[in-house]
């Protein structure tokens, strides 16, 4: 099935009152932001979409695909699932090697595993510091390694027309590269973020409060300008971080040399 859009039909907030936003449509090719304070219900919104909820979650939201209620099989069977989700759960609990896990996951999604293990690990190693090896046990991976592996796994094995991403900036990995890898061309992407750089990269964003969708904000031209400048500051911060990580010393010159706000 060709997925053109998803529609979220608003339900209720944590107090049981109707959400301000009654209906939200995200179309193919759009990167859509989800913002709001901790505990405001961002992850629940994403999880409603992942589960293709039909009024059966506490939020009572309904999710339509191309304007229709999706088939039960699509909700249940990963082989028919068209949604990839990168949640905030950063650690693996499975007691298996990286290779076993990836082969098993490829099988669950119904794709052939030829060469897929190497592909996922190579991509993951582009995002993180110390490389992951295929015979490592999943549970010994560091937070950053786990997260990189999850990102690469979502990009390759769960490759789907709808991509849901929860706070990628907290992962200690290269967030821009990760987002690029995940979003791809012609997908529906929803990103939960507290990071202004990522939030302003989206075309629109929904503001969450008390479990409900409060309002939808369109990114203005001025915000896009702000986004570019923030992005410069961000890459400057990143370059400082890399220096510290690699055992170099910073000097006042490192700050003076950067005229990031101009």
């Amino acid at each position, binding site marked *: 099935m060709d997925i053109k859009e998803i529609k979220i039909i608003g339900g209720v907030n944590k107090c049981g009152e109707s959400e301000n936003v009654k209906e939200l449509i995200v179309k193919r090719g759009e990167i859509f932001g989800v913002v709001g304070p901790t505990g405001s219900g961002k992850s629940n919104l994403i*999880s409603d979409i992942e589960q293709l909820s039909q009024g*059966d979650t506490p939020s009572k939201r309904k999710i339509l695909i191309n304007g229709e209620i999706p088939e039960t099989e699509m909700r*249940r069977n990963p082989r028919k699932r068209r949604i990839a989700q*990168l949640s905030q*759960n950063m650690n693996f*609990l*499975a007691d298996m090697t990286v290779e076993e896990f990836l082969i098993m996951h490829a099988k*669950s999604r119904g794709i052939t595993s030829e060469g897929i293990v190497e592909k996922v690990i190579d991509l993951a190693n582009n995002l993180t510091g110390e490389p992951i090896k295929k015979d490592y046990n999943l549970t010994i991976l560091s937070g950053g390694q786990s997260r990189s592996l*999850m990102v690469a796994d979502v990009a390759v094995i*769960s490759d789907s027309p709808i991509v849901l991403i929860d706070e990628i900036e907290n992962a200690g990995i290269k967030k821009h590269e990760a987002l690029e890898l995940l979003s791809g061309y012609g997908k529906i992407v929803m990103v939960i973020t507290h990071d202004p750089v990522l939030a302003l990269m989206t075309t629109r964003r929904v503001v969450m409060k008390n479990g409900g969708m409060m309002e939808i904000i369109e990114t203005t031209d001025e915000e896009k300008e702000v986004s570019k400048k923030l992005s410069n500051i961000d890459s400057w911060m990143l370059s400082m971080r890399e220096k510290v990580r690699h055992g170099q010393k910073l000097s006042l010159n490192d700050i003076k040399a950067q005229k990031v706000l101009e």
Partner: protein
Amino acid sequence: MKMVIVAGTPGAGKTSVMIHTIKQLINKGKKPAVVKVDCLYTDDDKRYGKLGIPTLIGLSKDMCPDHFAIYNIEEMADWAKNQNVDTLIIETAGLCHRCAPYTKNSLGICVIDATSGPNTPRKVGPFLTSADIVAITKGDIISQAEREVFRERVLEMNPKCTIHDVNGLSGQGCGEVSEEIIVAKELSDLENEELRHSAPLCVCTLCVGETKVAKKHHRGVLRRIDGFTKYIGE
């Protein structure tokens, strides 16, 4: 009357899942009753009691709770008939991973915890492999990839089951479990009803209270660690 038998590892969320499922059944006009079988202690009668449905507790004490549940199945059914209900839900304690308390014409629901890791479905035995429905809990704690791997392992062990991802806290997914109960067949002839899987082989001196560990004190059907099985006794 329909009979639903719920089994699963301790702490997997059997009671929480069934409470949400029963609420859905009540909303759909059904009349369920529940029996909880546990070993030493349970306060689940209070949790089930809040639903305002007939609730019965069975404590098996020093007996295997699944054996206890099986011997008492007729009493439970008689009790449920007197309560004038249309669905009897029996929740077992679920301890040794070896029993499958489902009978052939009941609906067997296995509740299993996704955070126990994808090797668990290989370890738990007939209560998973002979279930009609497998309800996987706590999936919100792990990544989507790990959830899908867990699901695949369940299907490897029981290819015919229907899998539901359920959340014992929010009740998500329990609506679908209640639908399965509604379409389940009636159980009419309890006298000729059979277990789907034999209960574990275990007739030995330990079963009747011997506490000494040395081999010479034991009689009955004994299996050595190398797999050799013999009967010692008269």
